[in-house]
């Protein structure tokens, strides 16, 4: 028994205490085995929603009041309820209630959408084997230990252990495109003891347990063990590895069905789900500066209240001021302790000035974001006819962030490219062959055979009535090729177009249908597999005539040095030209082997393959010996078609000052070719390589320092020269993790050097990246000292982590799954739509919200500062300057609609200009409209205007009358005069800022002024029942009946607007920004026409 135990642990030494044991089919192991401990696992439900029906109200309220602004307003409201304050609790309670309700409705709606999306996944049908029968159930009902049947082209509903397949060899093909972006087919292997099962009854009879580690996010790592109980024997233990584990999200391909697989990890514990990062609330840079401004205003507010409280007590030191005979306190108040009184006064001042922090700003911002995001979804230019879908907005919180992007991280496959390889051309010797034509040269013949034979493509037969052979004979598309490399498929298909059809591999004979419709048979003797070090592959075949031939195809760099004859120069030139065009090139060569040479090669290979030690190395040596003395045949070019306008988009992004990084799981050569094709790298770009290959030669340290020296030297030179050389960096996953490895001493140093290099590169390509590594890269850049705004765009599930990590995540609605689109903040059909999304929508949203934020602070300074000044003239008694109705409605209705509309429809420059001149995007980079100087300008403008309003009215009222009948006005007329000037100034200020006057703008701006006048007339026109004061009765009308009041209103408005107009005009005249020039340019031709 002890030996048995030992053996178990030998089979898998990694197992430890925190493993899970799974009972296949929920069957208990036979007695004598370990005790049956039922473990609890989550069900297979994917949950991305935040709330349930029950916890919505408390959880949402809690989350909302966690926002400092909401909490602040709640406190103000409570203070108003408790103490005697100058304004009634309604003035702050009503807006707060409004804000909370609107936000709750919006969040509830968004969560409901998430619920719906989750539901559609959780309820998709799954086949489960129960009691020897296949039962159809819903995905979320799957439990750990269930045996599942998956059919071809179905997606695995959870992480499964592969038990048996419909294929006899116990393998199945799987594409993990939506997981890691690799669209190639991967082979997985069934557990050897169970691979013979073919029916559900057999599967059901299986009695086994699986022990495996607890869930962890690494997609490529899995260790486990299966114990199979047979009758009364000791259980048989087999090791399980990553090749037995089918991951959720992957799709079964080219295999009819796989029977009897067992669920290991379910629901949120699947590797796919673990690879999602927890959704954290993303906050935009604008929101951050908004909060910073808020804190400044809070400080201003508190200091105002403190100053006034102190002054109040200093002023009323003498009792005759404190309590003159005409104005006594109540007895209760008099008995209150002075400290309590002072504190109450402080709170009362806070309440009086609390409007300086605009509660309605949050509502307006929320509404602007929510409503504004519809313009993205409505945009017809971002609608894709093929897909039948337009852009999608999943979070509206980040609209303006689209205008602030500095780094774009893009996936390659499916994002930049169509993920669709196509054979473009081949050249034999020096001739280019694009289409089928007659050729009878020996080399050409050999070239086409080489391409037909030198590959690892499998033929997948569609079951048709006609049968396999006929199908291919008649050229019907009833069969197709599959391979782990899409290039090979493209090549073989290309050959088919040129007349040479690869039929199949049968009993180690490869059959080719040649141009003359004859079947040629070659015996496949050896395959020298592809590896990324050699970057080539070869086959050794024996032709029907008994000749031994070695065909080799591979990257130009690995073929040319081994070529002894052939038109090397011409082919080389062609290959280089193709590579520049972004095509993926391969060179083809051959070598005739004499029987003795073949014998020798055979011997070498067999010896190497049988070696127990250093097998890899020996094989490599053998390959090296065999693959030499080639005769060059020609080269091929395959294209992974770039998405439409991908290059144009990247160029625009570059011009807009963004740095574009390509993060891909793909191999370096392919990725680099795409980068060239998409103009990410230009011909003039100097490529810096930071790859495993290089770090193996030199130490990482040396490579890094060398590169940084190169970059820095260039920078110091380019300071003088005009056309500076730009750099492109290529880095692979292994090197990146070495750089980021934290445990080395001086690793922070590496990180810094790496960042420094990246900063000086206009484009960076990261290849061989794992999904989480992509997120790491994004995180690294995010955390660098400039804190740039990042955007990640991708289409597959492997991009989800970076989409979630980046400030803005954009999903492409790809062919493979909607994982990315669902987890993104915005989803677009094609990469090209990114241009409009950022350059037009992003730009607009940013300037709109920037104006919105600044304007809100400005108008509230204008609003509250006169009230502050008034305290100096009313004995610091917290007397409000304005009537309660004005206090409440100022932000809610008098001045809210124009700015909301502005923030929805403003277009300072036309859409066409923005698209034509991407560099305008630089004008708003780095949050330029919300920086401190700009904020200070707006605040000063607000203070200036407030001083103008207040003292204008003060001097008008100063100890005189301005009616023609000698009657006097009181304090409410004073306030109303200030307020009228205020409303008009603030609205007209916005009108001056509006560059895009549609009829709606006219309607809203003039309409809201009119509304103010009508409201005031009405409010003062009636003795309002149920109100305990009538202080506004006829105040507004009496004021308007006085000529000087009109004159002073006009004067004060003019004076208030004057500085801003002058500033605008001077700035435009003396140092116009690019945007302002563009405005003038679009204006001038129109003027000339008229």
């Amino acid at each position, binding site marked *: 028994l002890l030996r048995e135990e030992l053996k178990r642990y030998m089979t898998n030494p990694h197992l430890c205490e925190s493993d899970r044991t799974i009972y296949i089919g929920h069957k208990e192991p036979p007695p004598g085995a370990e005790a049956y401990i039922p473990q609890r696992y989550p069900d297979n439900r994917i949950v991305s929603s935040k709330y349930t029906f029950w916890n919505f109200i408390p959880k949402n309220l809690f989350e909302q009041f966690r926002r400092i602004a909401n909490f602040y307003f709640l406190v103000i409201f409570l203070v108003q309820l408790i103490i005697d304050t100058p304004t009634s609790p309604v003035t702050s309670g009503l807006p707060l209630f409004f804000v909370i309700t609107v936000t709750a409705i919006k969040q509830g709606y968004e969560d409901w959408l998430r619920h719906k999306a989750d539901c559609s996944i959780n309820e998709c049908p799954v086949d489960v084997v129960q009691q020897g029968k296949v039962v159809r159930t819903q995905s979320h009902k799957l439990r750990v230990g269930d045996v599942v049947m998956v059919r071809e082209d179905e997606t695995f509903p959870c992480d499964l252990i592969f038990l048996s397949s419909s294929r006899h060899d116990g393998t199945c093909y799987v594409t993990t495109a939506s997981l890691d972006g690799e669209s190639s087919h991967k082979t997985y292997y069934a557990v050897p003891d169970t691979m013979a099962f073919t029916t559900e009854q057999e599967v059901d009879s299986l009695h086994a347990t699986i022990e495996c580690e607890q869930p962890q996010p690494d997609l490529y790592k899995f260790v486990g063990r299966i114990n199979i109980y047979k009758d009364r024997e000791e259980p048989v233990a087999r090791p399980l590895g990553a090749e037995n584990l089918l991951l959720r999200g992957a799709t079964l391909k080219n295999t009819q069905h796989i029977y009897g697989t067992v669920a290991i990890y379910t629901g949120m514990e699947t590797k796919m789900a673990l690879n999602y990062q927890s959704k954290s609330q993303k906050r935009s840079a604008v929101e951050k500066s908004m909060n910073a401004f808020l804190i400044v205003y809070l400080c201003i507010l508190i200091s105002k209240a403190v100053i006034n409280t102190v002054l109040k007590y200093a002023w009323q030191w003498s009792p005759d001021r404190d309590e003159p005979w005409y104005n006594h306190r109540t007895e209760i108040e008099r008995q209150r302790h002075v400290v309590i009184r002072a504190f109450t006064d402080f709170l009362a001042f806070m309440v009086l000035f609390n409007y300086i922090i605009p509660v309605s700003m949050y509502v307006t911002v929320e509404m602007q974001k929510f409503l504004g995001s519809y313009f993205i*979804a409505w945009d017809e230019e971002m609608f894709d006819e093929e897909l039948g879908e337009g852009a999608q907005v999943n979070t509206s919180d980040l609209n303006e962030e689209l205008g602030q992007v500095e780094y774009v991280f893009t996936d390659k496959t499916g994002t930049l490219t169509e993920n669709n390889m196509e054979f473009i051309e081949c050249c034999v010797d020096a001739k280019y062959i694009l289409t089928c034509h007659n050729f009878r040269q020996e080399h050409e013949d050999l070239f086409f055979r080489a391409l037909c034979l030198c590959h690892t493509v499998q033929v997948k037969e569609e079951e048709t009535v006609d049968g396999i052979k006929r199908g291919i004979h008649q050229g019907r598309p009833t069969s197709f090729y599959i391979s782990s490399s899409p290039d090979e498929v493209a090549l073989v298909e290309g050959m088919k177009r040129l007349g040479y059809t690869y039929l199949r591999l049968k009993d180690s004979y490869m059959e080719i249908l040649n141009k003359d419709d004859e079947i040629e048979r070659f015996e496949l003797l050896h395959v020298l597999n592809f590896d990324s070090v050699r970057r080539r592959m070869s086959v050794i075949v024996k032709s029907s005539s008994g000749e031994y031939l070695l065909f080799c195809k591979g990257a130009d760099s690995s073929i040319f040095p081994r070529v002894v004859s052939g038109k090397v120069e011409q082919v080389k030139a062609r290959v280089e030209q193709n590579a520049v065009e972004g095509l993926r090139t391969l060179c083809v060569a051959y070598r005739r082997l004499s029987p003795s040479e073949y014998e020798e090669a055979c011997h070498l290979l067999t010896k190497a393959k049988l070696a127990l030690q250093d097998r890899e190395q020996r094989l490599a040596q053998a390959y090296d010996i065999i693959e030499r003395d080639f005769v060059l045949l020609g080269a091929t070019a395959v294209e992974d078609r770039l998405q439409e306008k991908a290059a144009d988009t990247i160029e625009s992004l570059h011009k807009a000052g963004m740095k574009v990084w390509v993060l891909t799981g793909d191999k370096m050569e392919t990725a680099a070719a795409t980068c060239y094709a998409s103009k990410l790298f230009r011909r003039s770009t100097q490529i810096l390589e930071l790859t495993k290959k290089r770090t193996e030669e030199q130490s990482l340290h040396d490579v890094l320092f060398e590169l940084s020296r190169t970059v820095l030297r260039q920078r110091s030179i380019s300071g003088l020269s005009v056309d500076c050389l730009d750099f492109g960096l290529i880095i692979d996953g292994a090197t990146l993790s070495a750089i980021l490895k934290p445990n080395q001493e001086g690793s922070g140093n590496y990180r810094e050097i790496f960042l420094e290099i990246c900063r000086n590169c206009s484009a960076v390509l990261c290849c061989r990246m794992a999904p989480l590594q992509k997120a790491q890269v994004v995180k690294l850049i995010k955390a660098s000292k400039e804190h740039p705004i990042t955007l990640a765009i991708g289409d597959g599930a492997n991009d989800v982590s970076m989409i979630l990590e980046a400030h803005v995540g954009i999903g492409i609605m790809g062919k493979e799954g909607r994982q990315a689109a669902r987890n993104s903040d915005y989803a677009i059909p094609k990469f090209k739509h990114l241009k409009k999304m950022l350059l037009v929508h992003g730009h607009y949203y940013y300037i709109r919200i920037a104006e919105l934020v600044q304007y809100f602070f400005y108008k509230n300074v204008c609003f509250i500062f006169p009230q502050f000044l008034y305290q100096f003239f009313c004995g610091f008694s917290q007397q409000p300057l304005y009537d309660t109705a004005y206090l409440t409605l100022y932000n809610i209705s008098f001045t809210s609609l124009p700015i909301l509309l502005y923030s929805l429809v403003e277009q300072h420059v036309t859409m066409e200009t923005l698209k034509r001149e991407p560099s305008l995007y630089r004008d708003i980079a780095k949050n330029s409209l919300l920086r401190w100087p700009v904020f200070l300008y707006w605040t000063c403008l607000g203070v200036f205007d407030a001083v103008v309003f207040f003292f204008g009215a003060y001097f008008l009222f100063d100890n005189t009358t301005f009616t023609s009948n000698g009657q006097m006005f009181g304090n409410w007329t004073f306030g109303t005069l200030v307020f009228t000037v205020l409303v008009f100034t603030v609205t007209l200020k916005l009108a001056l800022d509006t560059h895009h006057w549609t009829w709606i703008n006219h309607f809203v701006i003039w309409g809201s002024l009119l509304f103010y006048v009508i409201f005031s007339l009405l409010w003062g026109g009636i003795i309002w029942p149920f109100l305990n004061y009538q202080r506004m009765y006829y105040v507004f009308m009496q004021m308007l009946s006085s000529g*000087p009041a009109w004159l002073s209103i006009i004067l004060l408005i003019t004076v208030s607007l004057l500085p801003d107009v002058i500033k605008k005009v001077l700035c435009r*005249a003396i140092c116009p920004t690019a945007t302002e020039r563009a405005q003038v340019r679009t204006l001038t031709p129109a003027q000339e026409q008229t």
Partner: protein
Amino acid sequence: IAAMMASSYNAKEEDGHHSSGSSHGGAGAVKSKKPDNTAFKQQRLPAWQPILTAGTVLPAFFVIGLIFIPIGIGLYVTSNNIKEFEIDYTGAEVSSPCFNCAKNFSWNSTTSCNCSVPFTLEQPFESNVFMYYGLSNFYQNHRRYVKSRDDSQLNGDRSSLKNPSKECEPYRTSDGLPIAPCGAIANSLFNDTLELYYIHSNGSSTAIPLVKKGIAWWTDKHVKFRNPGGSNNNLTAAFQGTTKPVNWRKPVYELDPSDSDNNGFINEDFIVWMRTAALPTFRKLYRIIQKKPNMTPTLPSGKYLLEVTYNYPVHSFDGRKRMILSTISWMGGKNPFLGIAYITVGSVCFFLGVVLLIIHHKYDNRNNSADIPN
């Protein structure tokens, strides 16, 4: 008037539904997802796109300058033509005739203290002359004071008469009876009596007739303020069950026994007082001296005597009491501020116009030349 802003009517094509025909062939499901091609949804509404440039703002500045300066001059001249006379009768100084009254003031005294203040008008006052009393350092705009009133009581509401608002504390009840009118404002009603005498050259004096109607807002007198009991003439009965404010000498229904239309809550002196002033130094309209039908000035130049019944103490809070005589123009009393402000702003605008003209010439050329190579 020149256009204020440069404008270009951006004649964007009203896309309407031009291209919708092309998508008709597509599947129904696809079509439904396609966004509507309307000008609004595509953000292509036709719009006026003004830009504030030096060239376009220039004319506006000149226009503002040209309009504002004449207005300012007009206002300034009007204000200067207004005659105003002001005399302080607080009695804070020993030399002042009202010094004794101010010094010996006591709330409990039953006899009133009188003093007469002589003054001379250098120039005659034409047309209607308005007589104001002015108070300084009196915080009518103090919050505790402003809110200390009950508007529904003043509007004649019976329940409020008997049960005044809590806001009136501590002037809400007195000896268990509700105060009418309640509150601090009413309680501190200005109760000096001012009379004006013209001293003839022979030493005799004639009283100048002072009109006490038309000093309050019409709407206040006729709508906002109403006596309880409506048109019932018996005010004494209407106010039964209430008591007078603590500082008053007589109840509210005896404010003007001679004129039932000016008694009780609708007493104009009372209404004027109830409109709280905006600033601590203020004046309130007291009486109107009507223009005489013949050509003689309303108040000829010469010596006058102001007879004051000194009831109102201001000494405790360093207050000042004044009597003001003023003529009124269409723009009200004497206030040079508006005229000066208009002239200043007009001149500044004109000056800025000139500056902008220079800048416009200098930089516009530079910008244009810079644009050409592009």
